[in-house]
């Protein structure tokens, strides 16, 4: 035995005095959002008899589905300590693209290109993957920070949307998309099932695959990941493509869910998705969090949005209240980060 080892060894082998406190501290990131969710649910259940009903739970699930699908990919991006501001625009353009390649009613004045349903879906998916690839190349090959790169992509995707629909509204999308977006099976909306499956898939990838581990490591310490011989650029590029494809799927199902495809349809989903991921406790600095956190974050947002409709308050005040509650959640996020850092130190 050598001196250096034995010194630290005996210091750490002794029983830590506050084991539970330390554990709670280090788990604060996961506990805080969950407590927020319970408090909000409790409050709305007490404030309105119509809130805590099975029907309303179904409503909430449906309401968060599109956000949930988009947030799966965004979780990967944020875990890598990057950001994707183009998610809502890519969702929008993908939804519009799938409608563009579908035969519309004669009164819809869009110069579209009708194709079989499968072809329309594949083309739309290819489009969002391509836009994600552009993000990926800008970030990794050229070296544009993701914040700026995806800000540009937000405009580019919005521009393509505008050119495709030219201010018009399209209504028809392929049957498969209609089914997944707006019908139910056994009382459960397909869109909820798709969202659940994608969240589950994201969780499995992040937790049990090599790629998922790399995502966490790149987010935790990018330099160390590079010096460990990981292909950091490939991982960063992949998460940008994953994010765009998830957004595209969310966009297609969203169009079917809303019943129309038009410009600016998904604008609110950018902030909602980022909020869901971050409120859930995934660190904006990367390396901490996951799909489980995103799910909790989705429910916090869903309960908040839905609950505010059940209580009788000024609808203009609701926007402010939402903002304040999100702020509170973010404050908790930052403090949880600090507490953990202290516990690990």
């Amino acid at each position: 035995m050598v001196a250096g080892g034995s010194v630290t060894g005996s210091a750490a082998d002794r029983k830590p005095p506050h084991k539970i406190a330390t554990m709670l501290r280090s788990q604060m990131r996961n506990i805080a959002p969950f407590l927020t969710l319970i408090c909000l649910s409790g409050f709305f259940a007490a404030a309105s008899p119509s809130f805590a009903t099975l029907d309303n739970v179904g409503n909430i699930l449906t309401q968060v589905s599109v956000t949930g699908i988009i947030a799966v990919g965004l979780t990967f991006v944020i875990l890598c300590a990057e950001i994707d501001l183009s998610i809502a625009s890519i969702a929008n353009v993908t939804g519009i693209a799938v409608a563009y390649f579908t035969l519309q009613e004669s009164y819809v004045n869009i110069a579209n290109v009708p194709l079989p349903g499968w072809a329309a879906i594949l083309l739309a998916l290819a489009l969002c993957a391509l836009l994600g690839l552009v993000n990926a190349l800008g970030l990794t090959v050229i070296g544009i920070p993701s914040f700026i790169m995806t800000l540009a992509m937000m405009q580019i995707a919005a521009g393509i949307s505008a050119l495709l629909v030219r201010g018009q509204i399209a209504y028809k999308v392929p049957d498969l998309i209609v089914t997944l977006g707006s019908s139910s099976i056994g009382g459960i909306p397909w869109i909820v099932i798709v969202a659940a499956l994608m969240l589950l898939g994201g969780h499995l990838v992040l937790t049990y695959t090599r790629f998922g581990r790399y995502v966490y490591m790149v987010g935790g310490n990018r330099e160390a990941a590079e010096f460990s011989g990981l292909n950091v650029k490939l991982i960063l590029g992949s998460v940008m493509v994953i994010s765009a494809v998830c957004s595209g799927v969310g966009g297609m199902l969203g169009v079917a869910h809303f019943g129309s495809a038009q410009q600016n349809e998904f604008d609110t989903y950018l902030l909602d998705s980022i909020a869901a991921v971050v409120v859930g406790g995934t660190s904006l600095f990367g390396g901490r969090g996951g799909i489980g956190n995103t799910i909790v974050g989705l429910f916090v947002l869903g309960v908040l949005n839905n609950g505010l409709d059940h209580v009788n308050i000024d609808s203009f005040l609701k926007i402010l209240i939402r903002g304040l509650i999100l702020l509170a959640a973010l404050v908790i996020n930052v403090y949880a980060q600090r507490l953990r850092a202290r516990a690990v130190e």
Partner: protein
Amino acid sequence: MPQGRSPILELDQITKAFGGVEALRGVDFALYAGEIHGLVGENGAGKSTLMKIIAGVHPEFSGRFVLDGRETRFRSVRDARAAGIAMVHQELSVAPDLSVAENVFLGAQPTNRFGLVQWRRMAREAGEQLARFGIDVDPFSRLGDLPIGLQQLIEIARVLFSGARIIILDEPTSALSPPEVERLFATLRRLREEGTGIVFISHFIEDILRVSDTVTVFRNGRKVADAQVADTSKAALIEAMIGKGREALEETYTDDIPLPPPSDRPVVLKASQLSLARSLRDVSFEVRSGEVLGIYGFMGCGQLELARILFGKLRPDTGALVVAGDEMAFRSTAGARRAGIAFVPESRRAMLFHQEPVYKNISISILDRISSLFLKPSRERSIAGRQVEQLQIRPAAVELDLGMLSGGNQQKVALAKWLSYPPRLLVLCEPTRGMDVGAKNDVIHIIRDLRARGLAIIVLSTEPETVLSLADRIVVLKRGAVVREFADEAISKDRLLEAA
């Protein structure tokens, strides 16, 4: 000297724990004005923790903290600064994108009465201060463009000339060349005459003995000895540090060390004519299987850049690298890893994941060999467990977050991650920097063991002892060029220093 006066700073029964691990246990400490107080102790002994408490980095601790006879409690580094306490941390903490002058005046830029920064005055004063310290550099140049050693000197200068009356230096000399160390010591002595209280932490006991008045020894979170430097010796301090007489561990390398005759084993890596902008010029060398090539040079001689070229992080302007007969493309670190090259950078922070458990740190570089699409956590843990046992990493718990380990043990983890599937070539930057005698010795044994197993190893260091204790051949780098190669001859520390 201190006797008969009251200390400016007095700590009483300080205890501090991190996540249940006690780093300091009931430590008393006193610092007098006009005193240089040396602190020694192995890694994890609590020196840095105590100093961070004094500098306001750790506001939570138990015990009494008395400054100028009054009990005080700092809530932050700002509080400590305001009370005249400044610290140079072990890890570089500068703003690389700001100019030299801005770094020197960080947080205290001279302003005119409208609150605007007086740039010319700031540059002039920064230049003067640095010149007093023997640094000749354009105050407007970007700090990040300077060599690391110079950056560290500038950071030290900033603290020394900040007007603080208590100055804490944590391992300030580890990145400095001998003449730079001399200048630092001269400045410390001058500050001592002016009545500043200085705490000086170092692993170089000779340095402590040369410059300090008083010395305190830490072991295992406790203060185990304090003495006037005049009344103690290196052997006594080492004995107090590690608990028993182990001075034999640290060789002095003043005598000649014979380097072995050239080996005829296969060449693993051949570098020819590597050049990189201002850092490297026509650097050529080769390293064979079962051989340790030492690359020695002062800070800023281009060895950091050279190491990064070998691991595919930097692309040289010209030159070629041939690994086991195949030319390397210099495209990425992933490519270098696939070619069988392993790399441990000079900073542990750049290598390890502090918030992840030990086993994930160890498995990260071999995940593609031990798992395909899906992870195999049990396999990762068993492999990590074996490494922890072989390298005697303490505490021996693969689930523990890496940040809970001491520096020396972290360094072992940084090595462990490459050893489950031994690479062809291991590139080590400063493998023993900032480590205590015991851990240093462990790492040296690990590296010798790897050499015996047939690895080709390149050790790049600014510490002559590190190179002398490990290398079979030594290449000396000076301002980016190879100036001397030692092989098959006897060499001593003086001759090595002379060549650099």
